[in-house]
C-alpha cells in the first residue's frame, strides 16, 4: 500500500540525519513515539513532538527509557505504528523490551544514534560500538534486523524500510545510526506519498473463534490482532503456545524460539542489503557501514590511484549478517578491510563468514571521532601486499 499523505513532507530539504529519520518515521506511518531525552538522538523526537500534532498522533516523553521502550509496544497492540529513539545508555535500558518485542512479535522500530561508550562515555561524540548489543543485547536467543544509514537521505529512506521490515517479519528493527550521520546535514528528497511503498500490518481476517495469535503463516510469521476488536487474545513474554498461552516446557520453548530465529534467518537473501562497487575483480574489499563507509570511500580512492583493485561492500543491513554474500566475496578477493568505530565487532563477523578464504583486517577506532582515511588506506595497502 501507499503512504498516508498526512505524514509525508514531499519536497527537497536540507536537514540532518536525526530530522530525516523522524520524517521517515512519519512517512512510514508512525503515529506514536515515546522517548526520553538523550544526546545525540533527542532531535528525532523533538521534531516528532513538533510535527505530530499537525499530522495526527501522539508523542509522549516518558520517565525513562524502560518506560519509553514498552510504551511503544503498548501502542502497537493498541493499533499504532510506533517507535522510540535513544543512544547508548538508553539503548542499554531498552534491552528488556527489545527482548519482549522479539518474544511477543511486536512490530516496532528502535532508533539508536550511537555515541561513545561504555557507560556514559562520550555523549556528544560518535561511535559504532553498539552493533553487537543490537544483535545480542537482550537475554535469550532471538534473531534481529538492523539497518545502518550513511547519509540523511538514507536516514529517511531506511527508516521507512525499517518500519516495513518490522511489519513484514513482526520483529523489532534496530535502526543503527551514529552521531555523525545523525548530525550531518544534507539534501533529503522526500518523494510523493504515492511513490512510497508501505508494508501493511499483518492483521488477521479470521473471526475471533478461529484466530490463534501465534499460529505461524507459511513464512513463519503469525497474523496480528489489535486490542479492542473482539479477539480477546493474550500476549505474554513467557514461553507460549500458538494460542498465546504460557506453556513452560522444553518442547514449546524449542518450537517457539527456533521459529523466532528461523523466520528471519530463512529470509537472509531478502534481508541482505549491501551497496557494492568494484568487487568483481577486487584484490581487497573494504567492508564498512554508517559514517565509516564515507570515510572509507576516500581511502578506496587513494588505493585505486595506487593501482590496487579495491572494492567496496557497504553494509546497509547489518543483521541478519549477510553471511552468504561475504562468503561469496571471500572466494574472489584476497582480503577484507573492515574499518569501524569500535574495537572490531563486525570485523569478527566478516572473518567468520569468510571462513578462511580471505584474510580479514580490522581497522579499529575507539570512538570520539572518525578514522583518518590514511589509516584505512594503509590497511588496504597492507592487505594487497
Amino acid at each position, binding site marked *: 500500500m501507499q503512504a498516508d499523505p498526512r505524514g509525508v513532507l514531499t519536497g527537497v530539504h536540507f536537514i540532518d540525519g536525526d530530522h530525516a529519520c523522524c520524517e521517515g518515521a512519519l512517512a512510514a506511518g508512525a*503515529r506514536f513515539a515515546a522517548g526520553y531525552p538523550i544526546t545525540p538522538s533527542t532531535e528525532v523526537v523533538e521534531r516528532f513532538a513538533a510535527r505530530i*500534532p499537525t499530522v495526527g498522533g501522539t508523542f509522549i516523553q516518558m*520517565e525513562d527509557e524502560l518506560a519509553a521502550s514498552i510504551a511503544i509496544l503498548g501502542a502497537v497492540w493498541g493499533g499504532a505504528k510506533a517507535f522510540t529513539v535513544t543512544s547508548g545508555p538508553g539503548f542499554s535500558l531498552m534491552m528488556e523490551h527489545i527482548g519482549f518485542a522479539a518474544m511477543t512479535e511486536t512490530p516496532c522500530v528502535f532508533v539508536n544514534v550511537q555515541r561513545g561508550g561504555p557507560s556514559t562515555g562520550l555523549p556528544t561524540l560518535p561511535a559504532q560500538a553498539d552493533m553487537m548489543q543490537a544483535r545480542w543485547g537482550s537475554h535469550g536467543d532471538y534473531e534481529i534486523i538492523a539497518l545502518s544509514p550513511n547519509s540523511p537521505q538514507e536516514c529517511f529512506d531506511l527508516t521507512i524500510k525499517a518500519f516495513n521490515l518490522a511489519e513484514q517479519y513482526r520483529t523489532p528493527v534496530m535502526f543503527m545510526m551514529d552521531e555523525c550521520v545523525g548530525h550531518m546535514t544534507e539534501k533529503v528528497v522526500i518523494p510523493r506519498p504515492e511513490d512510497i511503498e508501505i508494508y501493511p500490518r499483518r492483521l488477521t481476517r479470521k473471526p475471533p473463534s478461529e484466530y490463534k495469535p501465534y499460529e505461524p503463516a507459511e513464512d513463519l510469521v503469525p497474523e496480528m490482532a489489535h486490542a*479492542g476488536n473482539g479477539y*480477546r487474545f*493474550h500476549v505474554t513474554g513467557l514461553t507460549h503456545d500458538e494460542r498465546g498461552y504460557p506453556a513452560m516446557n522444553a518442547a514449546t520453548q524449542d518450537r517457539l524460539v527456533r521459529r523466532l530465529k528461523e523466520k528471519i534467518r530463512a529470509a537472509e537473501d531478502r534481508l541482505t542489503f549491501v551497496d557494492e562497487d568494484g568487487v568483481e575483480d577486487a584484490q581487497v574489499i573494504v567492508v564498512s557501514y554508517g559514517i565509516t563507509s564515507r570515510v572509507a570511500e576516500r581511502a578506496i580512492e587513494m588505493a585505486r590511484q595506487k593501482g590496487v583493485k579495491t572494492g567496496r561492500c557497504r553494509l546497509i543491513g547489518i543483521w541478519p549478517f549477510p553471511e552468504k554474500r561475504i562468503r561469496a566475496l571471500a572466494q574472489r578477493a584476497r582480503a577484507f578491510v573492515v574499518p569501524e568505530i569500535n574495537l572490531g565487532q563486525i570485523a569478527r563477523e566478516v572473518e567468520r563468514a569468510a571462513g578462511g578464504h580471505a584474510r580479514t583486517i580490522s581497522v579499529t577506532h575507539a570512538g570520539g571521532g572518525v578514522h583518518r582515511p590514511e589509516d584505512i588506506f594503509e590497511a588496504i595497502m597492507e592487505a594487497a601486499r
Partner: protein
Amino acid sequence: MSALLEVTNPEVTNPVEPFLRMERIPHIWCPGCGIGTTVNCFTRALIESKVDLDRVAIVSGIGCSGRVAGYLRLDSFHTTHGRAIPFATGLKLANPSLNVVVYSGDGDLFAIGGNHLIHAARRNLDIKVICINNLIYAMTGGQTAPTTPGEAITTTAPYGCYEPAFNLCALADSAGASYVARWTTYHVRQLTKSMSEVMRKRGFCFIEIISPCPTLYQRRNKMGDGLDTMKYYKQKSKVRHGAPTSELAITKDGEIVVGKFVDRDRPDYLELMRSRLSEQLGDRYVETENLVCS
C-alpha cells in the same frame, strides 16, 4: 440433595466463568490466596459497570498477581516486570476508546515499577490500577517488598524487616491520582463497588487490595491460614471513607484503614494534551480518535 443436583447440573455455571479462559483453569494460585477473590470481584464489577468487554484491556506485570491477565477472557497483556503501567500508557494513547486496567502486585507496581506509577498518576492518565498488596514477593518465594511492614519475617529479612514501608494510597494520592481506595479481600462487596466505580471514572484510579499470601507471609509470620486471615482482616479493619491518606500506613499487627479516600475530577492526560494543542495550533491541530494503522 437438590443443592447437590444444582452444583452438578451442567446448565448451571459459575457466573464468573464467561469472563475466564476456562481452558487455562486450574490456576496457579495457592489455597487461601486472595488473588482469585479479587478476580471474582473484578468480573462482577465488569457486569455491574456494564462496560463493553471487547473494549476492556487488561495489563499485568510479573508476579502472582501478574498472572491475572492470563486468566481473564479479555484482550490481555502479560508484560515485563514493573512495566505494566508504561505498556498501558502506550495502549491507551494509541486507542483511547479502550478501558485499560492494570492488574498487578505491590512489588511490581511500587518497587521495580514505582517510578512509572507516580508518573502515570501525575499525568492523570486514564487507566485503572488495581494493586494486590500481599506485603511480600510471593512468586519468587517470599522476599521483602517495599510494603513489608516492620518486624515481619521474609526470606531476605530473616530477623524481621527493619525498612520503613511505603504507604501506597498516600503515594498515589500525592502523585495526583483521581481516585484512591483500599479494601481487603474480606471486603468483597465494597471492593466490587469500587472496581465498578473506577470502570466508569475518567483519570488515574488506584485501588489497593490487602490480600493474604498464606504460603509465604502468613505462615512465616505465624498468622494462620487463609481463613484466619479473613478473621484478622475483619477484626483489624476499619472503614474510614475520606480519611487523609497520610494516616493509612500498615503495620504488622495494627489497624487496617479501608475505604474510599480520594475521588476527585481533574482533566486527564488526553484532555490536557488536546486542549493545549488545539489552543496553540488552532486549525492546524489534527485531533485523532485513535492511532490505529490499517
